[in-house]
């Protein structure tokens, strides 16, 4: 079993009267990749600064390798962590000098710096820029320099505060692919902040959902994205369809839930009479023309009232009488289905694709 690298206990960060962060407990195991998602002002960057031992929390403990970081030699422990920020602020020096800075701060010799840094400059495709002034770099090149600077430190923990957020789409894709490859190769314990659910799901083995300074949910990515523990967490992870319902009956593994007069079958074990929030991801809904379909469960009649085309997927808003649903379909399937606004359709969803949250 992997060892615990970083532990946060009862962390509270106050900015004046405002609570910026209030966490019960959070552990990061060696080799884990944790994605932190949440809306603006959720406390993601504050959390990263506390984890990086850059900011002392108002209350609580941060333990790195079991040592209380803010009562012992904080600098020594902080030097086992490297943080990369959204804006790659580099010094008025060359790319090499910037990338070597962290190693130089640790008093390493020029030969040792060269030995540790050169492979990263190569891997990140910036070796040819080594003697260029950092002020002349593009955003992507500057961010690669910033990442090389952090990776050359061979940290126990790498923290990334949306370092790809300000990049153009092409640079961002390239950067993310390189980042995913490097993290996979090195098995470096990594915590990264992102707004993008796709990125969080693709890169994070574990996902933490943060809102209003509170840790709403933290767990395996499948659990967090498909079985959120509360309404707010469901909204953040993209469960666009959230409807209030009441459990009607339990029949072995299938539960009947009444939602605004409609009955939905759900693979769940909650007791009858319980109020729940019925959560369905948009991509779990299937659309079909006509009056019947193959699925024996959860056939809802509806009408397409809005279509939002996308490059990969089409989103549709469906009027199902007393409630509305948002469905997401692959572009190819959507075009082949010949759907258009105003079409009467049948919406189906598998009982195993519906998640219930006790209200």
């Amino acid at each position, binding site marked *: 079993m992997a060892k615990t690298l970083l532990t946060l206990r009862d962390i509270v960060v106050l900015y004046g009267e405002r609570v910026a962060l209030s966490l019960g407990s959070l552990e990061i195991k060696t080799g884990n990749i944790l994605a932190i998602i949440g809306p603006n002002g959720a406390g993601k960057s504050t959390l990263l600064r506390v984890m*990086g031992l850059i900011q002392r929390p108002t209350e609580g403990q941060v333990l790195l390798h079991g040592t209380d970081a803010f009562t012992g030699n904080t600098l020594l422990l902080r030097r086992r962590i490297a943080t990369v920020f959204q*804006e790659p602020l580099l010094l008025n020096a060359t790319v090499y000098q910037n990338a070597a800075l962290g190693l130089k701060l640790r008093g390493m010799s020029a030969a040792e710096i060269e030995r540790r840094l050169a492979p990263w400059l190569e891997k990140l495709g910036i070796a040819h820029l080594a003697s260029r002034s950092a002020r002349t770099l593009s955003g992507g090149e500057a961010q690669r320099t910033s990442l090389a600077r952090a990776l050359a430190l061979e940290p126990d923990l790498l923290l990334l505060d949306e370092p790809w957020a300000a990049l153009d789409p092409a640079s961002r894709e390239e950067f993310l692919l390189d980042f995913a490859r490097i993290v996979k190769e090195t098995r470096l314990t990594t915590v990264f902040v992102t707004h993008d659910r796709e990125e969080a799901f693709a890169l994070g083995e574990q996902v933490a959902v943060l809102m209003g300074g509170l840790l709403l949910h933290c767990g395996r990515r499948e659990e967090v994205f498909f079985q959120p523990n509360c309404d707010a967490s469901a909204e953040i992870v993209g469960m666009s369809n959230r409807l209030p319902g009441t459990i009607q009956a339990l029949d072995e593994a299938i539960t009947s839930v009444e939602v605004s007069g409609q009955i939905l079958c759900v693979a769940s074990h909650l007791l009858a009479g319980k109020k729940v929030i019925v959560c369905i991801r948009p991509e779990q809904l299937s659309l079909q023309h006509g009056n019947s379909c193959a699925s024996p469960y959860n056939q809802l009649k509806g009408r397409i009232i809005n279509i939002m085309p996308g490059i990969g997927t089409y989103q549709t808003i469906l009027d199902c009488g007393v409630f509305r649903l948002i469905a997401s379909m692959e572009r190819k399937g959507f075009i082949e289905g010949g759907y258009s606004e105003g079409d009467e359709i049948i919406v189906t969803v598998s009982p195993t694709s519906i998640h219930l949250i006790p209200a």
Partner: protein
Amino acid sequence: MELIWQGALKALELLFTFDAEVWAITWLSIKISGSATLISLFLGIPLGIVLALSHFPGRSFVAAMVNTGMGLPPVVVGLFVSIFLWRSGPLGLLDLIYSPTAMVIAQVIIALPIVAGLTMAAFQSLDPKLSLQLLGIGASRAQLIWLLCKEARLPLLAAVMAGFGGVISEVGASMMVGGNIRGQTRVLTTATVLETGKGNFDVAMALSLILLALTFAVNFFLTRIQQREQLRWPRLS
């Protein structure tokens, strides 16, 4: 015109015959203003850094005081330093009035707010996130300050130039606290005032030319360092 021409010739003669008194005055000016500038840098840079980077009650008030001090009239400084150092004044026992030390004190009071104010502005012009990034790669607090100083080196050089320029050219405070005593506290500015008053325009011009050359030499040296670091702006069409 004749007066100016005669004055210029006399100035060149004094300069190139290495007149002992002129060079003694020049050397004293360099010593007093150089010492005052160094002391101002020693005190003003840390003060500017503290005002730029820290938060404490009354910080805004101190910053406003420093900014006000940047425009402090030398005669006002001269007046108050004289009162304090006067034989019957609070610091009269030190017997510093009409001494080079008194002139250094007055010049430090003039240069200190200039250096501190420009240092504060230089640090505040840096992106606050730069500190986080440097801490994020393991900088200690001392290393952080040193790196920020290096990053703000261009505006900090401007602070050095402004501080030195402020004291080498001032006359009011030096006259009041130094007394313009021949061979003891006479510097280039006070000597120029005296010689002009006596109608010795040739000597006054010689002293002025030395003062200008000295100021230019120091600023040229610092500007070379400053501009060597500056990135070239693209040519605008």
